[in-house]
């Protein structure tokens, strides 16, 4: 080995080992367990081949968790990006006390997701319902988290409330890189606001749009804390996310191996999405 390179190997090898032990190894172990019928404790288990995988595809609870998670992730991603872009544009306009407002809008980002969930859980059950009753609004007068059809909307509200913060700051940073002279030129051309946005603003913040989409999507696909705090997956299994299913099923139901198989499928799905995303990004960056 090259002597000059030695320190570089020393710098990285311990990290690689730790990384392998705590990330790659568990992933491989998960694959191994997924071919067994182990319940996570006890001494004996058998290899059962692809039986867990076959069962997964027949399991409506699993399908339901994937459906909820993807529906949730797509809606949250879109809403977060719309709202945070609007807020960022507002903050970038000529207003007073801009830094103060920027500080307020970023505040939710520093708070614990779990605790924010608990606070909203209270609001949903004891505050919003009172407004609903006083104002005579039917859908607001019962706890939205208790409804099988609508509980997911409650979780979306909380995720968006908190998720906007981070993306707003990024959009704002993007907007601030756009020179004012561009807008002045378009003013002279007589372009209206709408045209201005699509011709100037949006193309110039496109990289930020990409980052924000990817981040928001990634976070919402892993949703767990909000579920624990707000609904615990209920009513029924209406709001059970994949993470929550793996946690509760894997430990509570004695389905350790079965949920390991679920994890493997989840990984393959996420890996596919990621590869598609990266390809897409690379192509776009090439175009710009």
């Amino acid at each position, binding site marked *: 080995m090259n002597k*000059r390179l030695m*320190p*570089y*190997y020393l*710098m*990285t090898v311990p*990290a*690689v080992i*730790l*990384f392998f*032990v*705590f*990330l790659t*190894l*568990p*992933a491989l*172990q*998960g694959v191994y*367990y997924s071919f067994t019928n182990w319940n996570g404790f006890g001494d004996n288990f058998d290899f059962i081949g692809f039986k867990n995988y076959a069962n997964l595809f027949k399991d409506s609870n699993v399908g339901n968790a994937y459906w909820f998670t993807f529906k949730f992730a797509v809606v949250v991603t879109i809403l977060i990006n719309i709202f945070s872009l609007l807020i960022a544009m*507002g903050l970038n306009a*000529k*207003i*007073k006390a801009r*830094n103060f*407002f*920027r500080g*307020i809008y*970023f*505040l*939710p980002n*520093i708070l*614990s*997701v779990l*605790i924010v969930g*608990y*606070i*909203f859980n209270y*609001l949903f059950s*004891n*505050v919003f319902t*009172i407004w609903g009753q006083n104002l005579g609004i039917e859908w607001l007068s019962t706890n939205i988290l208790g409804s099988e059809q609508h509980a997911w909307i409650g979780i979306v509200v909380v995720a968006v*409330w908190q998720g906007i913060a*981070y993306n707003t*700051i*990024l959009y704002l940073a993007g907007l601030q890189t756009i020179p*004012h002279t561009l807008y002045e030129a378009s*003013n002279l051309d007589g372009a209206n606001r709408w045209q201005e946005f699509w011709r100037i603003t949006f193309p110039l913040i496109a990289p930020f749009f990409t*980052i924000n989409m990817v*981040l928001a999507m990634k976070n919402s*696909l*892993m949703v767990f804390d909000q579920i624990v705090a707000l609904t615990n997956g209920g009513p029924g299994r209406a709001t059970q996310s994949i*993470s929550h299913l*793996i*946690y509760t099923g894997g*430990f509570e139901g004695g389905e*350790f191996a079965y949920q390991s198989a679920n*994890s493997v499928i989840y*990984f393959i799905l*996420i890996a596919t999405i*990621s590869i598609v995303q990266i390809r897409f990004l690379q192509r776009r960056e090439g175009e710009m």
Partner: protein
Amino acid sequence: MRTKTNWTVMILITLGTILILFPLYMTITIALKTPEDMLTSLFGLPKELHFENFTNAIRMTNFFNALGNSTMVTTATVVLTLLSNSLVAYAIARNMNRRFFKGLYFYFISAMFIPFPIIMLPLVKLTAGLHMTNLVGLTILHTVYALAFNVFVYVGYIKSIPVALEEAARVDGTSTWGTFWRIIFPIMAPINATVGILICLSTYNDFLLPLIIISDTNSYTLPLVQYIFQGQFNTDFNLAFASYLMAMLPMIIIYLFAQKWIINGITQGAVK
């Protein structure tokens, strides 16, 4: 037209802040009321301040113990992450032309796309076998998992530092380690600030990893304590909200003082 304050936008932005602040307003007022106050006025300011909610919550949840645990894990993770992750990234960034290091780069950053739940079940077995079901184990795991994102951020930054500085040092006979600690690490201060803030926030607020790793209640972090007391909190919202508020307060206080710095740091991190 663009020189005057845009009042329409100003009003909309102000209305938006009300939506952001309302839950926090409720948290603070409920934490200071009694159940009887809530019956008469749910939204109003408390007529008198009931700080006993806080003292009760402190006693019941052993608040300072949890605060100590959270602080320790967060501080240790931040320091360890900054020291170790930057070093790894440095070695990679300066050897990207070599297949081994380039491979490492992709090995590390590919983990950004692995959702944690996938490794959750085997990880519990593994950490238990290694006797890592404690705060030390938690710190190590946080530090190791941070590598994926941080290698990505750091390598981008280090690449922009000219190699000339290091070559000069090497001519003077400084070792590679010395070069890193004395020359590169100080130059990385801005990116270190960013990474430090992000790690600090994510570690302090993390719930899932401590939930599955930590066994001993004496080692519970603040979010975990809020979780574990739900059964008791359910009957007394004022106590619960006092406890929530206290758990969030350290970060809020830090934010009040270092707001600009934090926001700039985070912007830097993402733009890089």
